[in-house]
């Protein structure tokens, strides 16, 4: 008998069926069953009714400890009182106005004072906007066309950042993309020569936090070599810090790894769920940034700026990167202990603030997916293919509860597969 009974999702499923009638795939993208890998579907909550702190509730009233944090935006806790108060106060003063609010200036000043490499900030709405801006800015500055990516890259959904085999993408959309293995300096030099130096930028996440495989942390030494390569060849170094930004280091993940990006892109943790993203850059790129025709109807809305200011100030006050490291280590240690007690080899990889999990008893991830499904259906929301996220509202009691549910789920899976356990 399981300690935590499985949830029932009758109402959530009804809402999802309504969604399927009017929205392609019901819920498309990373929050939906397809990209989110809800395997099997009936174990997942699908649609939420409310959220608070580190929890959300589905339409059936089931409560979940959320270690995906809306895939990153929940950095301080859902409905953080300080961020929400700032946003609501700004809403009363004005949001989307013809002359942008002074909050935009304050937000840019705060980013410039916080982020090590930032001499300026440019605002938009999503991570894709920020990476696309950075890519265009690099081209405008260098007058060159090609971009180097590290293998397994993900830098958003615009055609330039995708692959030729994706639906809707043409080979010509990505013909200027060059892909090399992470930190392979020989490959970098080789592609530079092969392309006769026609390379505008190198774009990368601060470390390899890709999906479906163990994440690989970077080192200062490796990044210094890449930085030198870019300096030697006049290549703009773009750091896509959309996912990891502010969770490793409030000065930027480039600072965490001991180097300075030319442009750094932020989104998820920037405003605790209020919709904005930003690219911050060095002085020499400011004129090129100004030259771009790149804007949007809501990009200068004031409410997200007010939320972002409150969010960044609170992250500074709490020293969230240190907090997240401690919480991440405590949580993953508890998961590993529970795994060992039940005969599982749970591999934890990546930075503790964005830990990635994989059960290694088989090589197909099927046991892992089964365990994740049993966790989710008992109130611990995790993912089988993606790194996780820590938020500041996650308490020691929450960690203890998460570990207990994880342990319960391990025991359920262990009973089904006694032959696959480590004795």
């Amino acid at each position: 008998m399981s300690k935590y009974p499985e949830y029932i999702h009758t109402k959530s499923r009804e809402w999802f069926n309504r969604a399927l009638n009017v929205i392609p795939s019901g819920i498309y993208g990373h929050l939906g069953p397809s990209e989110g890998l809800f395997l099997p579907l009936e174990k997942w909550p699908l649609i939420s009714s409310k959220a608070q702190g580190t929890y959300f509730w589905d339409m059936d009233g089931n409560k979940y400890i959320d270690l995906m944090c809306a895939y990153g935006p929940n950095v301080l806790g859902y409905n953080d009182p300080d961020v929400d108060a700032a946003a609501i106060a700004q809403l009363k003063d004005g949001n989307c106005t013809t002359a942008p609010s002074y909050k935009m200036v304050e937000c840019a000043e705060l980013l410039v004072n916080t982020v090590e490499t930032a001499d300026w900030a440019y605002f938009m709405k999503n991570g894709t906007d920020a990476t696309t801006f950075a890519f265009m800015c690099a081209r405008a500055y260098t007058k060159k066309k090609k971009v180097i990516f590290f293998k397994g890259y993900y830098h958003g959904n615009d055609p330039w950042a995708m692959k030729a085999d994706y639906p809707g993408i043409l080979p010509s959309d990505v013909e200027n993309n060059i892909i090399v293995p992470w930190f392979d300096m020989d490959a970098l030099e080789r592609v530079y020569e092969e392309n006769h130096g026609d390379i505008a930028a190198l774009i990368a996440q601060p470390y390899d936090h890709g999906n479906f495989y163990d994440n690989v942390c970077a080192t200062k030494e490796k990044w210094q070599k890449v930085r030198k390569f870019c300096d030697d060849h006049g290549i703009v170094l773009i750091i896509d810090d959309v996912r990891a930004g502010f969770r490793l280091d409030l000065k930027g993940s480039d600072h965490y790894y001991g180097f300075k990006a030319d442009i750094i892109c932020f989104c998820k943790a920037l405003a605790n769920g209020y919709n904005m993203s930003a690219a911050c850059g060095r002085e020499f790129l400011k004129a090129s940034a100004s030259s771009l025709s790149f804007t949007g109807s809501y990009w200068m809305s004031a409410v997200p700026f007010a939320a972002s200011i409150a969010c960044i100030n609170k992250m500074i006050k709490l020293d969230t990167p240190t907090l997240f490291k401690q919480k991440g280590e405590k949580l993953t240690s508890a998961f590993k202990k529970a795994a060992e007690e039940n005969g599982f080899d749970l591999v934890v990889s990546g930075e503790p603030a964005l830990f990635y999990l994989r059960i290694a008893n088989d090589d197909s991830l099927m046991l892992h997916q089964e365990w994740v499904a049993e966790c989710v259906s008992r109130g611990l929301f995790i993912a089988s293919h993606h790194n996780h996220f820590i938020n500041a509202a996650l308490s020691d009691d929450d960690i203890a509860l998460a570990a207990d549910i994880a342990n319960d789920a391990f025991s359920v899976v262990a009973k089904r597969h006694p032959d696959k356990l480590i004795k």
Partner: protein
Amino acid sequence: MKNEKALAFVNMYGILGALENLCILDSKAKEILKEIKKPVALCFDVKDGPCRTFHFDKNGCKITEGSDGSSCKMNFASPEKFNLLIDKSKPGVPVKGVVTLLKFLTGPFSKLTARLEEVLRPSKEALSDPAFFEENTLMTMYVIAGAVSALANNDPIAKISAENTPDGDIYFAIKDKAAITLSVKEHRFTTVKAPCENPRAIMEFSDIKLANGLFNGEVSTVNEMCKGNIRLAGVLSMVDNVNRILDRVAVYLA
């Protein structure tokens, strides 16, 4: 955006490759096989393309790689020439066992390929028969299965997907009806028309009707995944990449 060489592999491994399944599943094909008095091993050898031998006898069809054991052989000067055999029944150059070859080509082989076309491109009325609907679906699955590997190894865009597919076996099935294996090693695909014991990834359609709709492009794979009608498990990046290759299959088989 079809590549002629890749199309030749699709025609050899997908379309003609399904002859062996036709001879097992289809009663009319079995009747045609009875006309074969002596076993015939027919080789199609395509310059800069595939080379396979089709062994026919009264009991069925077996396909082997290369020309070993062939009793008659037809050469094609290029993938384009071979593709004309499929599109316009334009033969290549007979180089071995000419008399047997011509007799077989104009006899049982033509009848079998005509029957294959009937099964793969049926009328609406024919599909109203549940048994034929099932046969059409299974045959389409075998064609697609052969085409997936053909394209993964030869189509410039599908090769990108193959390049991102880790090693291992993918179990591709219609529940309780049929299963095939897509075996991946160092980014090269091989189709095995049988289930595998230890798949690294599973993609299983819940029933024949759903599979038929998916194969004919009438329903969306992602939508059906979201409804839970497609069972997925394991290293889903493998399935994800196969899905991208299936998009290319649709282009080639359209």
